[in-house]
């Protein structure tokens, strides 16, 4: 055993190994900082170089790349509220409010330091765990995985915001949207209406960008100022590192959760962050401000998601089952290098396994260290007036969006989900609840069906299942005590009271809350469509969406009922327009801001992305930002040049429009 450790360590601690790893880290950092790209794009950049390299160096490069991506995508999450990849969606929740408060550098350095610690702890956990991992992974059957999905769904209790009813309804909305596409049990297609795009289901990245990034962009466009409310960056990066040290016990717990859940194949990496975030919300007692910029809301998911990559190595190496997108890429790279995963990785190839696990830890240190150094200069972005930053951000989310399937459909869907996100934000419907429902829809349905097939309903009496049921019950109980709220209550009520006049009762409520009521009614209509579609399917294809849609409809009906008949200060009512009115902030129109995002999509539909991007930039900068021609030309050329360089390095084709259907054009217009 000891000689294996020594052999692995001597592999890692050579200048050559660390040098190649650094190359991987730097490429990964440059790619990962750009939302939507991540490991897959990094791999295609790196593949040509893998040939002719010896296995350890090539592996070092790949590991450097994979390790840094969940770290570097934090930049976009914290600074712009754009979830850079599925691994940093939970980070947006508190990271972005911190940036808005002028604490971007603190949030970033806390995130990176937590990542660093998480990566190291993950490696320590794995060092021991790798030897017993095979039987432990095998102990998680479909029954346990189903209960884990339910556990994940129970986090809705924590993330529901002020009104639990709305949280459950939003989660059901996510479950129904997640069930679009092929049914796991029968393969029949649900809610596709003949649209090719919907057959595969809506990509997660589109839901993440639409729900979180678009609403923030719209809101900032309406407010028309820099992201940061202050002109300085406030408490610097040292504060962030101190935050992590002060919360060492939370960091440790979340890293452990990340490594262990990451090691279980089939649950999907996205849930890990939310479970860690939820865990933080449930357990932090000391003055929690989650959802409004609590640094612990950044530390928890970031320490978990780096540990998760380490955990995800186990099923990849031992069973050849990649735990997520980055691991799929890593697996492909391994196969190209002639390393075949399998039981030999804990047998004759154990030293290689340890080399990989510890390289990942080392790569985490290098990557996070580099990011901490970059945190302060990059945070200055938040001081730029938003009207100059906005076209970049709109271009970035569209660019990230069409990475999903490289079609115009991605952009159209992004716009639709974006509008949904804008109004969910306005009316206090918790977006994380929808996202969790969406992420877990397929898992919950598949594993429930498989568990019943394999074990019958007695699966509920399996020991593993009972343990997870216990944990879930505890989590729900804790969750009901500590909930995250996105909206602030006091002022809303004042405005609502004013708007409803002196009168009380349904008529006055409808007057004051009409926009919210319309939104809830639309949600109800969507559930009705879901029920109607489910009824067309066979029993196995319909039972899950039917139950979820009925539950969603019932909860939405309760929301509607409370909106119409509830007391003026009922928790279910929420409208950020009222809040803004109370604060007296002058706001531009929502539709105007959405229209700017929509214009880039519309231009792409007509002329393809490359021409649309340039046109959009010039139009936005001249008409909206009123920039000088010189400024307009510089910014447009900068953005177009950057996007084109990136796309040409990645052999990427842009989505085309009507023009491309009619004429054959050379790249980048093709």
């Amino acid at each position, binding site marked *: 055993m000891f000689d294996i450790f020594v052999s692995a360590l001597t592999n890692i601690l050579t200048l050559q190994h660390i040098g190649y790893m650094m190359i991987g880290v730097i490429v990964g950092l440059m790619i990962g900082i750009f939302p939507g790209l991540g490991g897959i794009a990094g791999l295609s950049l790196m593949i040509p170089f893998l040939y002719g390299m010896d296995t350890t160096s090539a592996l070092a490069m790949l590991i450097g790349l994979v390790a840094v991506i969940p770290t570097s995508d934090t930049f976009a999450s914290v600074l712009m509220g754009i979830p850079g990849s599925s691994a940093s969606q939970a980070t947006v929740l508190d990271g972005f409010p911190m940036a808005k408060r002028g604490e971007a550098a603190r949030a970033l350095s806390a995130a990176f330091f937590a990542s660093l610690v998480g990566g190291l702890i993950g490696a320590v956990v794995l060092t021991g765990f790798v030897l017993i991992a095979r039987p432990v992974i095998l102990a998680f059957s479909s029954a346990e995985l189903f209960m884990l999905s339910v556990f994940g769904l129970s986090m809705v209790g924590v993330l529901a915001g002020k009104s639990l009813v709305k949280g459950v309804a939003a989660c059901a909305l996510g479950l129904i949207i997640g069930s679009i596409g092929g049914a796991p049990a029968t393969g029949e297609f649900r809610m596709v209406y003949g649209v090719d795009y919907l057959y595969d289901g809506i990509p997660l990245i589109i839901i993440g960008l639409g729900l979180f990034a678009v609403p923030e962009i719209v809101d900032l466009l309406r407010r028309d100022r820099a992201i940061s409310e202050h002109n300085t960056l406030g408490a610097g990066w040292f504060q962030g590192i101190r935050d992590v040290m002060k919360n060492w016990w939370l960091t440790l717990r979340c890293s452990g959760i990340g490594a262990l859940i990451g090691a279980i194949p089939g649950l999907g990496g996205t849930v890990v962050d939310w479970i860690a975030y939820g865990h933080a919300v449930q357990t932090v007692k000391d003055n929690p401000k989650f959802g409004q910029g609590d640094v612990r809301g950044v530390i928890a998911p970031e320490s978990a998601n780096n540990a998760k990559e380490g955990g995800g190595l186990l099923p990849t190496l031992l069973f050849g*089952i990649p735990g997520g997108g980055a691991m*799929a890429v890593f697996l492909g790279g391994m196969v190209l290098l002639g390393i075949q995963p399998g039981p030999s990785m804990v047998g004759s190839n154990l030293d290689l396994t340890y080399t990989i696990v510890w390289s990942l830890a080392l790569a985490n240190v290098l990557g996070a260290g580099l990011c901490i150094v970059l945190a302060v200069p990059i945070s200055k972005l938040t001081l730029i007036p938003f009207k100059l930053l906005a076209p970049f951000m709109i271009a970035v989310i569209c660019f990230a969006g069409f990475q999903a399937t490289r079609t115009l459909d991605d952009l159209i869907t992004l716009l639709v989900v974006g509008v949904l996100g804008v109004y969910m934000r306005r009316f206090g419907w918790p977006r994380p609840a929808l996202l969790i429902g969406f992420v877990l829809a397929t898992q919950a349905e598949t594993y429930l069906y498989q568990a019943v097939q394999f074990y019958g309903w007695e699966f509920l009496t399996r020991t593993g299942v009972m343990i997870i049921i216990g944990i879930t019950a505890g989590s729900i109980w804790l969750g009901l005590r500590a909930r995250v709220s996105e909206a602030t209550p006091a002022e809303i009520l004042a405005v609502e009271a004013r708007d409803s006049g002196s009168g009380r009762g349904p008529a006055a409520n409808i007057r004051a809350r009409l926009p919210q009521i319309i939104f809830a009614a639309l949600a109800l209509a969507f559930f009705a469509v879901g029920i109607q579609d489910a009824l067309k399917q066979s029993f196995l294809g319909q039972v899950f969406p039917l139950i979820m849609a009925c539950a969603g409809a019932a909860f939405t009906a309760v929301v509607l009922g409370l909106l119409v008949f509830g007391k003026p200060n009922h928790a279910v009512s929420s409208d950020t327009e009222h809040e803004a009115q109370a604060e007296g902030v002058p706001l531009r129109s929502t539709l105007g801001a959405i229209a700017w995002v929509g214009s880039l999509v519309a231009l792409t539909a007509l002329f393809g992305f490359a021409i649309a991007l340039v046109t959009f930039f010039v139009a936005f900068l001249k008409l909206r930002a009123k920039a000088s021609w010189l400024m307009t030309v510089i910014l447009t050329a900068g953005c177009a040049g950057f996007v084109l360089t990136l796309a040409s390095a990645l052999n990427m084709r842009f989505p085309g429009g009507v023009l491309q259907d009619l004429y054959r054009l050379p790249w980048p217009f093709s």
Partner: protein
Amino acid sequence: MTSTTSTRRGALGYIAAAAAAVTLGAPALAQTDFSGQTIEWIIPFGTGGGSDTWARFNAPFLSKHLPGNPTVVVVNEPGGGSTRGTNLFAQRARPDGLTILGTSGSTQFPYLLGDPRVRYEYQDWSVVMVGPTGGVAYVSPSTGVESIDDVANLQGQRLVYASQGATSLDLVPMLAFKLLGLDVNYVFGFGGRGDGRLAFERGEVNIDYQTSSAFINNVTPLVEEGTAVPLMSWGVLDEDGNPQRDPTFPDLPILEEVYEMVHGEAPSGPMYDAYKAFNTAGFAAQKMVVLPAGASEELVETYRQAWRDVFADPEYLDTFVAALGSYEQVTDRAAEALFTAGTNIDPEVRAMVVEMLESEYNVRLGD
């Protein structure tokens, strides 16, 4: 030192090729020169999967052996179970040799089954290379089977199989088990064969299959432990299209032999025809490289020559077993034979399979 030699060798080869072209001058042997150009190799799957790895392994060799050493880039166009990228190729690619397509069993199956999303026609295309693979079915010893001689013990037992879906490559084992008269309960919704193997190791299912490399790396240890018993391989096709034992597993019978053991006669009939068509499309002719409709003979010959050169490249011979397994990729007549066998199906056989999928597994392809 190495780089100079290889450059010199490359230059010499180039001069030799140019000289050959000049002296022969025959139009039939003329080669298209791709100097300074970029060839897009469309892969209708995402990055990191089997088809992507296969293409990325082959791409540098293709680049090295095509006249003019063009850059060959792999362009991933995933979606719709590979129908989206393939449709795009069918609709957009010009026969100039600068766009080629790599397809897989998952592209062939929807085509053979008449999936409404398929808007491509294999017969329009010219095949220039075929990459075969194989597969092995195995059972748990809990079924009372300790070797293939006990195959009769499987009759009348309730077997459970973890499937990715009735229209995936799992259709091949499904048809094979049907031919053998086995009573198999299919549990769907598995993400890949790896997940199916995990279910087997947990004891949730007692019959499974893996592609060859996964079988060698992950199931052989189980066979040695005595927790898995190999049953049969899917076999390979010879140049005339006849099924043969898989050279990777020379000791394992193929379905045809097991069928004879069970039924006492050689297999025949529409169900067997269906098995043969889908087995070829899914395994023997799993990966194909095709040129778009309208490709000239000259272009096809250029590509085939390039593949012949790749297959003779010592560096290729050194590495392909580690990366792709021991199945030799082929071009020319062998590729044609596999292409024809893997992309044609008798309409009656197709109708029977579609009907079976619909009545037994609720698959509605016409939706």
